[in-house]
């Protein structure tokens, strides 16, 4: 800790002895008999002073003579007052108001209406302030305002986000109506940056994207992060279809760490909150327990800022290495009376993309029905390959079904289209807000009721949010917030290869088996599950009725922040926040199923608590070092404490049927877990601004973490960012280039590790075996941790053309993450599996571009905005631990498909076996018509070549229409479900060659041939390895697939292109016109029709949505393993203000 004290000392010295200079503009003026107006103009040209006067002043043409050199403006003004009958009022920002000296200066009330220059509607919420004072009001719902002024020569300023601010000298008037013009550039100008500091976007040397509530909120998503999809360059978002409240994979600028989840840090109103996942499905099955992101209520969000690179996030130290998403929630506004907002949205959800299945051939193998092997269907029910769909054509002939009942043998409709219901999401929010000069308050309550497409999957969620700010005296402002979230989800669907996975079942169910027969016969006369065989699959109706789960979450977030305005130069912010989540989950299967519950039934329930507390202080110091050079310094500290606690109980074998309680379980086990972690940080942030064109930022942060060894628990991060607005520097004609900015950034941030990694432990087993049992972990401790370090640099430019009607924003970045804290595999012969170590490096580089334009704005109020963003990230593994040539991150189908990292290859490369091919890529075929088996090789990787979104927004009078198309080009994934559909003969692709084979081989066993008949069937495309001629030898279609998939383990056909272009979002909104609303108590009514994920323009993978990864982890998109079908949603949203 000695180094910490030294640093403190240094900082104290630095703060106390920083010097500054202050200069005032002086004026030189030499005029002889010049009209007063021209004197004004001369002064305005020579200096930054501006005069405000009313044209009807009689003295304007009065002759003036003066000769002064380097004097204070006050002297000049005094001289002018002597020579005229006017008086002059010096305001801040070098404004000089000219007023007749003979009028009495009495307080007055000014009224008026502010409208939008665009559509002439009143603008509510415009801030009207008397210049030089803090007195201000806000316009009401109609844009009307009323303000008390000290006199009729005061200057009013009108400010509204997204519009150009105006200063209007009253010049004696008491009614000022004003049209505010939309400020095209200003929409993004003020940005919330790290530590919630609001900054002018031009001053930033790094890339940051802010998305406002209107863009986020139009289509209600349970998880508001999903609304960012396609809107932010460099941000990859995929929400796997795993039911209501499923989790979302969020990756910013590529994967940087092999060990952590690579999810960006989520900060709400300055307080970091839990944004992790609660447990994901694996390839073998399970369910998606959702993530902590979905607790953020979309209705309470004011804006989200995405801090992409390390430069933007350096102030967050070890947690910022994957970027940060800053969420600012709504707070109360100063207004007359109480504002009430009611929003109701009802969104329906229905299946959109699901596998297409063949409808010609039914259960069986080799073109035979199972009864041709044995008369007893029951005997063969579970025996492969007889449960596949390689049987006879279904032509209505009478054959025994799976229950041995003779029925007409016909194809069943695609179960994907039949089984799932139309889901829905009803969300109602009531928000109250109000405030006066001292206190503002906002309270909201949201009720949400979601129904998933899986028939029993429901969610109920309530969110209560209270926010209030109040001033205590002149110097202190207190800001408090409390949020409570209650969320209960029932029957999260089982996915992947789970025995209870509906989607898996429908991929491989024989094509003649009807859902109705499964539902009617899900148990036999003994109450035992029917159709269950082996570990592959149960009867989906048994699972639907007898295997249930539910979970319930209570989450509380609190925030108290005190801002102390010590002096003009010093501000102090002290803030403390907590995030506490309590979760309960339960799952059971009744007795009566072999595959689901080992006949005897299973039960588990558990509870966990997560706590994170953060306390901060932040001292801000600002000083004008010279006229053009300004310094803004922040010095802060953070104390973070995280705790996780859980208890679980589980077991099997029910004693009494249908009583789902642990007391009713015969073999029971319990578990308990606790961990905690503390991190202390000190940081400094500084900004130097020169004139209005150069900005230099620097940050330094030191963290001390309880999880690292005592000798090396201190580590630091720093960044420097530079922004140059060259259009200001070179005074470039704004009609050519209205904005030109270059920016650059360098940063070094790091990452620590979890608790308890630095020593080896023994554990004791809870077992009913009557002997003491203990064990040692297979992971060896590693005492010499260093933090993971990501160093990155970034260059970017912003260009604005045609008065910023066209804007370009471009960024290139390059980052390397070294000293990865990862599990390094040990030789099994050492007796241990792995050791945590610092090893390996991953480099990410890429670019991001945003082009936005307003092609049309007409006086009549029609406007069209369009923006296109796209980005490319290359994620390259530079090295792994010494001696490690690869690291397997995930495997599927017994290691036939491996998701790996290897030095020199992209992160998340997919390995598997290909065919042997000639130099032209043709498969080589042997004399039996069989393709030759090649080597295991890199078949693709998960990283897209390009992702992006195209957004269009049209508005006309009260209507607005926007739509967002997003796209991904390149990137691959392995489709596990398609492989199984081809193996089981259920896919449309499996039809190839079947009719032909059947025509020559009907009724024959697979290996038999008919003398003189040349067999037809599946003809592998390729060239004969001996003759070089195109292959024309046919194979039995089922054996072809079994050989390729099962015996030759060739998986290259199932590595699919993830490219897709989809209609992500459409919103058609209408604001009811004032003429109607004026007769009602309502201030605003907006009705929107919304749609999300409506359809694909292009989807290379055809049968599945490429976003259907198996979970939300870093490599979750590498493997598609039968999540639920993808869905589209559409509905209506109504917002009423009064």
């Amino acid at each position, binding site marked *: 800790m000695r180094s910490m004290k030294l640093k403190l000392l240094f900082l104290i010295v630095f703060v106390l002895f920083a010097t500054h200079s202050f200069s005032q503009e002086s004026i030189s003026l030499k005029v002889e008999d010049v009209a007063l107006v021209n004197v004004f103009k001369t002064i305005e040209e020579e200096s930054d002073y501006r005069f405000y006067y009313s044209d009807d002043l009689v003295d304007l043409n009065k002759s003036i003579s003066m000769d002064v050199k380097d004097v204070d403006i006050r002297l000049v003004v005094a001289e002018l007052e002597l020579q005229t009958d006017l008086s002059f009022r010096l305001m801040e920002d070098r404004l000089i108001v000219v007023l007749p000296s003979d009028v009495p200066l009495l307080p007055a009330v000014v009224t008026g209406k502010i409208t939008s220059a665009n559509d002439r509607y009143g603008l509510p919420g415009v801030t009207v302030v008397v210049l030089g004072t803090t007195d201000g009001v806000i316009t009401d719902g109609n844009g009307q305002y009323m303000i008390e002024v000290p006199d009729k020569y005061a200057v009013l300023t009108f400010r509204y986000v997204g519009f150009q601010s105006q200063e209007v000298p009253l010049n004696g008037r008491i009614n000022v109506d004003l049209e505010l013009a939309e400020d095209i550039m200003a929409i993004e100008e003020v940005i919330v940056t790290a530590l919630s500091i609001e900054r002018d976007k031009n001053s930033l040397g790094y890339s940051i994207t802010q998305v406002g509530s209107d863009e986020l909120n139009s289509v209600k998503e349970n998880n508001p992060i999903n609304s960012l999809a396609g809107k932010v360059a460099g941000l990859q978002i995929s929400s796997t279809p795993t039911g209501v409240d499923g989790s979302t994979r969020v990756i910013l600028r590529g994967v940087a760490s092999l060990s952590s989840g690579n999810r960006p840090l989520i900060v709400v109103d300055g307080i970091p909150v839990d944004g992790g996942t609660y447990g994901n499905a694996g390839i073998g099955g399970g369910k998606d327990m959702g993530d902590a992101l979905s607790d953020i209520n979309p209705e309470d969000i004011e804006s989200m800022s995405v801090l992409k690179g390390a430069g933007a996030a350096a102030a967050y130290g070890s947690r910022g290495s994957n970027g940060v998403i800053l969420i600012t929630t709504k707070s109360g506004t100063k207004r007359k009376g109480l504002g009430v907002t009611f929003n109701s949205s009802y969104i329906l959800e229905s299946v959109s993309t699901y596998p297409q299945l063949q409808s010609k051939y039914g259960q069986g193998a080799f073109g035979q029905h199972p009864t041709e092997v044995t008369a007893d269907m029951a005997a063969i029910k579970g025996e492969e390959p007889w449960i596949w769909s390689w049987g006879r054509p279904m032509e209505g002939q009478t054959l025994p079904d799976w229950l041995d009942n003779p029925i007409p043998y016909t194809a069943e409709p695609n179960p994907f289209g039949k089984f799932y219901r139309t889901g829905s999401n009803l969300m109602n929010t009531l928000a109250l807000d109000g405030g006066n000069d001292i206190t503002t308050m906002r309270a909201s309550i949201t009720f949400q009721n979601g129904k998933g497409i899986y028939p029993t999957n429901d969610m109920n969620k309530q969110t209560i949010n209270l926010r209030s700010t109040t001033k205590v005296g002149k110097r202190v402002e207190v800001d408090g917030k409390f949020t409570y979230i209650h969320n209960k989800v029932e029957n999260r669907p089982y996915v992947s290869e789970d025995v209870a996975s509906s989607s898996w079942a429908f991929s491989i169910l024989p094509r003649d088996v009807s859902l109705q027969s499964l539902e009617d016969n899900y148990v036999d006369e003994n109450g035992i599950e029917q159709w269950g065989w082996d570990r592959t699959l149960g009867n989906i109706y048994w699972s639907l009725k007898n295997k249930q789960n539910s979970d319930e979450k209570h989450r509380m977030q609190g925030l108290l922040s005190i801002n102390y305005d010590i002096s003009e130069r010093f501000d102090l912010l002290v803030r403390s926040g907590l995030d506490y989540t309590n979760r309960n989950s339960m799952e059971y299967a009744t007795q009566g199923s072999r595959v689901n519950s080992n006949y005897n039934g299973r039960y588990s329930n558990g509870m966990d608590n997560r706590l994170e507390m953060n306390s901060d202080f932040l001292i801000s110091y600002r000083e004008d070092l010279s006229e053009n050079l300004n310094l803004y310094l922040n010095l802060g500290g953070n104390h973070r404490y995280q705790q996780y606690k859980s208890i679980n109980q589980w077991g*099997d074998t029910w004693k009494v049927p249908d009583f789902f309680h642990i007391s009713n379980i015969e073999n029971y086990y319990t578990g308990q877990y606790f961990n905690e972690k503390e991190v202390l940080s000190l940081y400094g942030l500084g900004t130097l601004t020169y004139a209005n064109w150069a900005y230099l930022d620097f940050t330094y942060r030191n963290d001390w973490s309880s999880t690292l060894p005592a000798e090396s628990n201190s580590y630091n991060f720093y960044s420097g960012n530079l922004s140059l607005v060259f259009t200001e520097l070179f005074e470039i004609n704004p009609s050519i280039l209205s904005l030109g900015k270059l920016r650059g950034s360098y940063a070094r941030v790091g990452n620590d590790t979890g608790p308890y990694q630095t020593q080896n432990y023994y554990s004791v087993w809870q077992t009913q075996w009557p002997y003491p049992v203990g064990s040692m972990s297979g992971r060896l401790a590693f005492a010499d941790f260093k933090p993971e370090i990501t160093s990155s640099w970034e260059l970017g430019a912003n260009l604005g053309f045609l008065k910023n009607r066209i804007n370009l924003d471009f960024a290139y970045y390059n980052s390397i993450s070294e000293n990865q804290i990862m599990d390094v595999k040990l030789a099994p012969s050492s007796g241990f599996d792995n050791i945590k170590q610092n090893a390996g490096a991953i480099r990410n580089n890429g670019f991001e571009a945003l082009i936005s334009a307003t092609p049309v704005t007409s006086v009549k109020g029609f406007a069209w905005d369009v923006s296109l963003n796209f980005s490319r990230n290359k994620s390259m593994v530079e090295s792994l631990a010494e001696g490690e040539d690869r690291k397997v991150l995930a495997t599927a189908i*017994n*290691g036939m498909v491996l998701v790996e990292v290897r030095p020199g290859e992209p992160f998340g490369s997919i390995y598997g076996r290909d065919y042997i091919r000639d130099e032209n890529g043709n498969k080589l075929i042997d004399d039996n018509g069989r393709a030759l088996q090649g080597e295991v090789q890199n078949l693709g990787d998960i990283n897209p070549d390009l992702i992006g979104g195209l957004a269009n927004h049209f508005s006309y009078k009260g209507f607005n229409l926007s739509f967002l198309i997003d796209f991904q080009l390149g990137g691959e994934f392995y489709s596990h479900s398609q492989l199984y559909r081809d193996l089981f003969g259920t896919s449309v692709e499996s039809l190839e060659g079947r009719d032909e084979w059947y025509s020559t081989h009907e009724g024959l066993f697979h290996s038999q041939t008919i003398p003189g008949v040349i067999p037809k069937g599946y003809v592998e495309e390729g060239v004969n390895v001996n003759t070089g001629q195109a292959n024309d030898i046919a194979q039995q279609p089922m054996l072809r697939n079994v050989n390729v998939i099962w015996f030759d383990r060739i998986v290259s056909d199932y590595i699919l292109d993830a490219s897709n272009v989809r209609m992500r979002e459409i919103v058609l909104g209408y604001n009811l016109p004032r003429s109607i609303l004026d007769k009602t108590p309502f201030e605003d009514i907006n009705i929107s029709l919304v749609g999300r994920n409506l359809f694909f323009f292009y989807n290379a993978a055809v049968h599945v949505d490429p976003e259907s990864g198996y979970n939300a982890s870093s490599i979750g998109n590498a493997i598609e393993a039968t999540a639920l079908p993808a869905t589209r949603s559409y509905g209506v949203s109504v917002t009423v203000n009064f």
Partner: protein
Amino acid sequence: MKSKKYNKFEIKSVLVLLLTMAMFSSCDERWEEMNTDPNQLSSLSDEYLFTNAVRQTFRDQFERFDIDFGGQFAHIWISNSWNREADKYNDIQSQGDIYERVFHGVYNGPIRNIVEVMQMTGPGGDFENSARYAQASIIGTLNFSRLTDFFGDIPYFEGGMGKYDILKPVYDEQEVIYSDMVSRLEDAISVLKAASDTEIYSSAEDPLFAGDRDNWISFANSLRLRLAMHARFADPGTYNDVITECLGEVLIEENSQNVKLDMEDSNNTSLYNPWHAKIIDYQASLYTLNWSAKFIDALKDTNDPRLAFFATKNSSDEYVGMPNGLADTYYSGWSRANSSLATEAFLAKDQPMYLMAASEIYFLRAEAALFGLGSGDANTLYQTGIEMAMDQWSIEDSLVTKYLSEEAEASLFGDQENSFRQIATQLWISFVPTTFEGWTTIRRTGYPVIEQRTSDMYSQGVTDGYMPTRLKYPFTVEASVNGANQQAAIENMGGNKIDLPLWWDVR
């Protein structure tokens, strides 16, 4: 230019704040406590790991040893379709690196724990105790011997020592390993003989013999005999003497002395026999195992009363074994439903798991006598072995007597070679379900004869149709992390093929 002074108020406020921050410091001690895992222990006494090592030796390895490889190579049974590469004599595994699963299972299971017990109880250890060290050494030897009989050269002296900074263990020659194992067992026997009953693991800590020191001695000596018999053809000079030594010491003589782990008839999966869980609970209709035609025929031809205990009859009321090594097309057409499966009795939840039984020792003694080692009559020992083997499965006495009196194969006959065949064949049967030892018997003795596969009906694999004699080394993690040492072993052994004979496999 002029400079502004800071007022007292500003200075005070900032100072107070900075002092508050300074209170952040001095948290090192608290943090050391905070970063100590409360869910686990920093120290634990040895019996916890000893019982676990014993448990893992039995419960955790059978699937790899006896289902995946041993049983299929030994022609005792055929596994299900996706586990049949071994049966097809193939050396690439559709299930990934199954060789590493064998390796990993042993090193990261019983060996990790037993090595730690030996560190704890060895000289200078936290729980120094030479008797317990000897017991741990026996369990360790049992595991290492099974592993070397799978692969040949393996990391032995440095194996499982990762916690003691040996992360890349050197491979040792099988000949050296055998020599050390035999002398370790010798040491263990003499330590246990001299030890008191209170020093060894007590009945509450000893799942094998409930604290019976004599049984541990007979176990160690029987294991020593087994190893010496393995090695006797490779180095008769050394091992014939060892065999003679062993025959002069106490050996397992009764089934009550068998090296077995008792199982319970319970609903609790962790207490009952995992074979039951593996075959009856989870894979019911999947035919995890079909009895091999070779095995069924051997029992059927000799009217062996164990047949009804092991195998079910098919729907035609017959015992039908499935041929080993069917080529894929023939395999798909084979109706597994019409072949004999394992019986419920054989797979009963409370059926103990065996690693050594009295029958084996009698057969080994018969073999020794046949070749002129030790004393005793080969035929008497052979027949006692058969009685013991049948008694192990509670075959009715009358059936045993009938078998012994009526079946030609129940008495040794013919020349030494024929008697040797008979003994080896009975060993092969007696090892069921520990079929790995059955395969070792075939490798060591050449009996029962496994013919070369020549017909198109059978897969010839990578061995030209000959039964594999070892496993390849793991080709994934062990190969990449400990590659240099593995490569040295491959060079020492003259290759890395599954038909390469081990050092002791010279017959």
